[in-house]
């Protein structure tokens, strides 16, 4: 198991390297595009362009250019956004905790509620509860997150803000956990709920389908023949084996969200996370930031992938390396 983990970690490095090369090539070696002009932002001065050309060695060979870019990004960390004239790396580092807070909280909510909904629907199969839960799940999947977020804001921030239920809701924004935990929590409650709605619906449906499929397995019949209670059969046998798919999906979605996939939620709720940063850099065509967020996102997605593989081996002994 340990060697498997090490092998997986090494593989992770290889993938990250490949992604960085790919991103580099897209930004610096696309034919017919002058990367210096691209990076300089809108209406650059001739001097800025000259500076950039020198900084990134744009007159030198490709491997050296790659090395210089990596150096600016990870070693000297002085990559500058020419749009906002700030350093990119500190900006991303300060945005990361915001995104992590948002995604972690939403993940807790969506895991708990999707398991409850999925198991509920599977247990009450054949009754009216099952279709009701599944229709709710489908509605959850179908609601666009930006629309839902705006409606939530409309209700909690303006229309019904004076109503006692929502009067506690603070203005949009983010307060670090270390600074004021209560404020942190209050500001994130609605973003969490909004972000998790889609995933609750999706995961509940996947889990229900898996549970029903597992229910027909021979080993579930064996479990019943052993004299186990229905509750134990459900939790220790049916649910346990159904969680394999659930967990692998979860790892990937979690990685994508931390890597900037929660963009819409962050924009709607004004959370200064990586998604909002990406959004702003995209609208401003701020190339250094886009480049860095792409690599940052790729890092989290591949990391999540690696973790899923390890978790998978733990959940399913059949894929465990001998």
């Amino acid at each position: 198991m340990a060697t498997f983990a090490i092998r997986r970690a090494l593989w992770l490095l290889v993938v990250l390297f490949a992604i960085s090369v790919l991103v580099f090539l897209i930004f610096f070696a696309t034919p017919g595009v002058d990367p210096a002009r691209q990076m300089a932002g809108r209406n650059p001065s001739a001097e800025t362009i000259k500076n950039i050309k020198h900084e990134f060695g744009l007159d030198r060979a490709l491997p050296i250019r790659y090395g210089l870019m990596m150096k600016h990004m990870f070693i000297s960390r002085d990559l500058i956004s020419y749009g906002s004239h700030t350093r990119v790396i500190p900006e991303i580092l300060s945005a990361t905790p915001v995104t992590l807070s948002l995604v972690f909280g939403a993940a807790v909510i969506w895991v708990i509620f999707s398991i409850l909904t999925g198991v509920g629907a599977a247990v009450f199969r054949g009754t009216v509860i099952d279709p009701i839960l599944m229709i709710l799940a489908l509605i959850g999947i179908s609601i666009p997150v930006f629309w839902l977020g705006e409606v939530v804001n409309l209700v909690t921030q303006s229309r019904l803000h004076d109503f006692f239920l929502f009067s506690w809701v603070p203005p949009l924004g983010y307060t670090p956990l270390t600074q004021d935990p209560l404020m942190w929590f209050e500001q994130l409650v609605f973003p969490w709920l909004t972000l998790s709605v889609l995933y609750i619906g999706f995961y509940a449906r996947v889990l229900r389908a898996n549970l029903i499929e597992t229910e027909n397995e021979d080993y579930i019949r064996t479990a019943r023949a052993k004299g186990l209670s229905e509750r134990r059969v459900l939790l220790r046998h049916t649910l346990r084996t159904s969680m394999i798919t659930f967990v692998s999906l979860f790892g990937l979605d979690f990685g994508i969200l931390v890597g900037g996939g929660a963009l819409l939620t962050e924009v709607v709720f004004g959370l200064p996370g990586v998604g909002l940063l990406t959004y702003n850099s995209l609208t401003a065509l701020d190339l250094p930031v886009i480049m860095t967020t792409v690599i940052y996102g790729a890092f989290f997605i591949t990391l999540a992938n690696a973790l899923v593989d390890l978790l998978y081996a733990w959940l399913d002994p059949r894929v465990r390396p001998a």
Partner: protein
Amino acid sequence: MAEPLLSVKDLKVSFRTEDGLVRAVDGISFTVDEGDVVGIVGESGSGKSVTMMSLMRLITDPNVIYEGEILYKGRNLMGLSQDAMREVRGEEIAMIFQDPMTSLNPVYTIGWQIEEQLNEHYDLKKGQARRRAIDLLAQVGIPRPEQRIDDHPHQFSGGMRQRVMIALALSCNPDLLIADEPTTALDVTIQAQILELTKNLKRDFGSAVVLITHDLGVVADIADRILVMYAGRIVEEGNKEQIFYDPQHPYTWGLLGSIARLDRPKPRRLTTIAGQPPSLINRPRGCSFRPRCPQAFERCSVEDPALTAKVGDGHLDACHLSVEDKRTRRDATIRPELAESA
């Protein structure tokens, strides 16, 4: 005579479907005495497995309808609550299933799965369940049980997994062991080993065994009494000698005739039973086997034959033919080479 361990009285199991009521088991009665080995034979769809699943009340289909009585040690299992039934499952009546490849949970070690059953039924101290599991694995012939106990099912071969299933079934010393085609999914040499094991364990544990199979060779080896099922009913019942040497029902003849035997001159070809089993929704009038029976005559399509003793003690059959007719006609089906040479 002492009270039988298990006594099934007029058991009917049917399923509500869109096309109508499927009568999978249509009024069967039999008894199993303590320590007895009863073989139930019949082709696919004859209701063997449904009968056994009903004994454990393991059918989860909400459209199932049970009728009749299943008396186990004098208690009617049909009237038990789910909780009381759980006490019976695994502890009093245990079951071995057909496919050992899929009958064990792939995500737990075999030790965990055996211990789970022990802990469910007994109040064991830490470590006791594990020691008992190791003993059981040794008894069913798993080499190095102390190490193999921590392996997962996928690390065992099919035969070894079936041994694990048997260890699991025997873990609480059940009085009745139901084996639902325990050797069907295994290759022939392993089949023989598993049957041998079943015989030895029956001796050591003293459990009664109900063995379901479509292979008469299997029951010939270990069964004391044999029930032949067709279309949800018992068509013939008797001890081993009666069924093999004096079979009364044309369906039994067909089954016997379709076995390749090495102890007799080689026939030109094996006989088969023509046709398909009848629909269990619209049973034909009269005898269910009539459409496939080469011996059928007028009475067969009018009157449903009852299961009665005609030739001897405990040898029952459901056929309208007279005993003499049966004895003169059956060789043509079972041993066509004799009939041809005669």
